[in-house]
């Protein structure tokens, strides 16, 4: 009997927010498929941060022992999640030996306006130059994310060592589905990391979270708190200060707009809310991954939409339930089926030949 198929994950486990949540769900999804090792990098990007809570839990659960800053990573497949953690590194001394290196992109390669959010070529270059790799793949997390990566690659012939995986590497949403309330109230909220990019202008925030609402819960409001933004009708909570379940108990509508210069590559916060049985109202670009599962709007339209659904609870329930049905596309089963070829030796070798 041959040795088991080995998958190595390359991450900085201190990354907060969506990437860590996605990796945690992914580790659970493929736990039985292969021998998993997790190689941790202490990048400058997350210097001083703690290991993300989601990941800590899954490492305990799966008895995964982190291997920090290893000189070498050798596996049948190496999956590097979100290469943005390499953006401040001047070198990457770890030697990667694998037939297939997959970089799960997470971040869009270009922002709205066409500018790179970080030096993509530099980060990819660090990985491309490290060790012995036969195949290097870029795995986008959504259709829009794929578009930015494809456009980026098209303009850079020097990056032809990288190929685009044919299937999106979507975030796995393994949430427990909670039925929506049948008596929604005008209780609004939003949750995200505290970064500026996750928030629209203050004017837009005021439209989304007005005094007339029964509740406005802003989880991840660290910058508003720090800057002394005075909104007595907002409940401003620092990122990570309450459990998501507790936060979702306080709201019926997730109203999520981000900076006009940011397009979410996947929108994990949206899946969190849908799974919690909430109606999500967001901008058209963020909604793209979720079809009719979310309601698209401009900030000035939000109150009318909320008023309508509060007055028509059956519409509210229908919207929330339909959305949950759509989350099946992001399930662990769907992920395993989509990437089955990557996680066993025969398919993997066939792909390389």
């Amino acid at each position, binding site marked *: 009997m041959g040795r088991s198929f080995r998958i190595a994950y390359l991450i900085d486990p201190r990354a907060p927010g969506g990437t860590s949540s996605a990796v945690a769900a992914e580790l659970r999804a493929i736990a039985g498929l292969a021998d998993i090792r997790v190689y941790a990098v202490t990048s400058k990007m997350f210097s001083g941060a703690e290991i993300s809570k989601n990941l800590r839990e899954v490492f305990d659960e799966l008895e995964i022992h982190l291997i920090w800053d290893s000189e070498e990573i050798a596996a049948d497949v190496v999956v590097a999640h979100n290469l943005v953690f390499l*953006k*401040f590194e001047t070198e990457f001394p770890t030697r990667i030996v694998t037939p297939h290196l997959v970089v799960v992109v997470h971040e869009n390669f270009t*922002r709205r*306006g066409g*500018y*790179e*959010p*970080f*030096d993509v*070529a*530099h980060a990819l270059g660090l990985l491309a130059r490290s060790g012995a790799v036969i195949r290097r793949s870029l795995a986008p997390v959504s259709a829009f994310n794929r578009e930015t990566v494809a456009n980026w690659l098209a303009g850079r012939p020097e990056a032809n060592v990288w190929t685009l995986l044919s299937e999106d590497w979507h975030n796995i949403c393994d949430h427990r589905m909670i039925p929506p309330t049948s008596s929604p109230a005008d209780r609004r909220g939003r949750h995200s990391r505290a*970064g*500026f*990019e996750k928030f*629209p*202008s*203050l*004017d837009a925030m005021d439209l989304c979270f007005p005094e007339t609402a029964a509740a406005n819960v802003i989880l991840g409001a660290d*910058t508003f708190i*720090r*800057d002394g933004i005075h909104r007595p009708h907002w409940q401003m909570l620092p990122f990570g200060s309450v459990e998501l379940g507790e936060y979702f108990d306080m709201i019926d509508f997730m109203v999520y707009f981000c*900076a*006009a*210069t*940011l397009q979410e590559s996947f929108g994990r916060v949206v899946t969190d809310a849908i799974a919690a049985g909430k109606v999500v109202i967001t901008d058209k670009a963020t909604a793209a991954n979720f079809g009719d599962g979310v309601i698209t709007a401009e900030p000035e339209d939000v109150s009318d939409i909320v008023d309508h659904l509060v007055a028509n609870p059956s519409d509210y329930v229908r919207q929330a339930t339909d959305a949950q049905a759509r989350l099946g596309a992001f399930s662990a089963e769907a992920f395993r089926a989509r990437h089955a070829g990557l996680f066993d030796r025969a398919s993997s070798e066939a792909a390389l030949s």
Partner: protein
Amino acid sequence: MILIEAGARHPRSFEGKVHFAQLLAERGHRVAIDAETLPEGLSRALRYDLATLLANVEETDLDAVVVLGAEAIEDATLSRLRRVLLRSPSAPIHVIGRFDTVQARSHARTRLAYAIGREPTLVDLLSTQSGTSPSAVASPFVIPVAEAPPKDLGALPALYVIITEDLMEEPQTIATLGAVAFMKGFRLSAVVSGKSKERIRQSRYAGLSVFHFSEIPPWILAKSADMAAFFGEDVPGERMAELAGLLMGQGKPVIDATLGAVFQSAGAPALRGPIDVGALPYFLEATVLPNAHAIGADALKSAWVRTRDIAQVEARLDLKPPPRKRPTDSDVGQAVFFPTNGHGLGHARRCALVAAEMPKQDRIAFAAFPSCVGMIQSHGYPALPLVSRSPMHEDNFDNDILTERRLARLVGPEDHLIFDGGYIFDSVVRTIKRTGCRSTWIRRELFRPGQINAIEAEREGEFDRVIVPRECFEELNTEGGFKPRVHPVGPIVDILDPAGREGERARLKKAFERDFDRLVVTMLGSGTSSDRTAQLNALCLQLEARPGLLHLIVGWPGSQLAPGLFQWKTTRVVRTLSSANLAQAADFVVSAAGYNSFHELVYNRVPTIFLPQIASFLDDQERRAAAAADRGIGAAVGPEDFLSLERLVNEWLETDQPDAMRAELGRLELPSPGAADAARLIGEAMG
């Protein structure tokens, strides 16, 4: 309005943005610095600069925002911009920085774009500027670049010698500097650390023109300098590096006499010079002065200068400076008199007397403190009111910051600023340097021993001319030897028509409904420097019982007079701007011995008992009083000598001594008054 912001919240970054803002303001842009970003412990010079720049930007419509030092944008800056831009959602954002990697550039752009929800325009100085900065700088190190170097450096070019602290600590440096300053062909000012400046002040070279590094901002220094030489290990900080850049941008010679040739190493078009300060005059004479134009022209052609041209940044950021106002016929220069209020109205009266002698009466303006404004206006001149010092101000120069702003409205490059006062305010020096206007200092002398203070000695060199109104008695004048820029003139004094005396007495009899036959006038000052209430009360008491006598206590409007002085029957309190008329009408006067009062009394032949003020910061009034007493035209009494005062007053009332003195005064030969000469000197300078 263009908001200039810095990525980092650090005093150095703040200073960098003020410097850049000033350069833009000088080019006609309307710029603002966010008052919310003011750091603690600002230097005095920076506070003057900020007076025209600080704004409540949340309440301001912004046309653009320029963020400097974008390689290190802090969250606090981003938060602030988010808030500030709520009012100006369409104002373009520009970021300027030095990005040593693509990642640094992407990072800065992305952080800003995320924070404000718009894409900024980005300027990477590392890729646009040739060479390097001779010192680490927080500002963009851009410079206005002249089309051509100055035609010539003038007869006496201003040379700034910048010396590092380590070189100043060497024992021979101050002496060498002192010797070099006396050599012909240039006017030297040293720019050194605050500590070294203090050492120079304590040395035998106290009269050297010297500034400390942060005393005058580089953009103002650069206007008044014709050339500069840098000595020591390196460039002493970014202000001095900016100064060098600004001079090179104007095509003025910059001499790199640093040990490490730091300017040359940075690729800057500075001329390598001798590292020894003592060799500088020979280098200037042999190399720099004969070739100054060519040196300047070479600098202007260099890539180092051209790639730092502020016009290029303006073009990149689409910041169009408003068109310069073309000179019109009404832009002919005017004489702007700025008298301090001192402890009376002496300075303002002197200026008014000089102004009255000037030929072009429609080209005269005044800037004056409120106590003097009425008097000046009574002479028919416009007076821009200034703000006086107040204990309500946090620092004792706060009002002077406002003075500079008001002077900026009144004084242009074509004008002539005439300052009359003992202490030369920063606002005066800055106005002269900033506008390049001609300047005259009217400065009386008769210092107390050791009183020639450092500031006077240091700042005298800022003026094109110094006019010294002489004392009427020769032994009171200082014979300071030959000083080409110092012009003594006769005493500046208001001489009344002697025939007016009887008319004035008649007027007073009518005004006070008192048919007096003896009139005593007491003028003991404004009460600011010394409280003379006890002496005044003693006089009032002494004169109260005398029939047929009127005693007038005369003060300026605004002088401090105790309420109790109003209770006497024989005494009346008069506040007036024309005390000379009252004094002339008196049988005798009891007076302090300030320059104006003393000379008015002597020239108008008024017998006087002098009670000199003896405050250490005033002139030597005791010597004036003694000179009058020695000539038998007055008496001198110590301010605390109540018995002598009482005895003298009784004696003068009961004998004909005042008449004898008046006769003696009539025989006295006095120098011709100097107001007309002073006016002529100012007129000559104005052209």
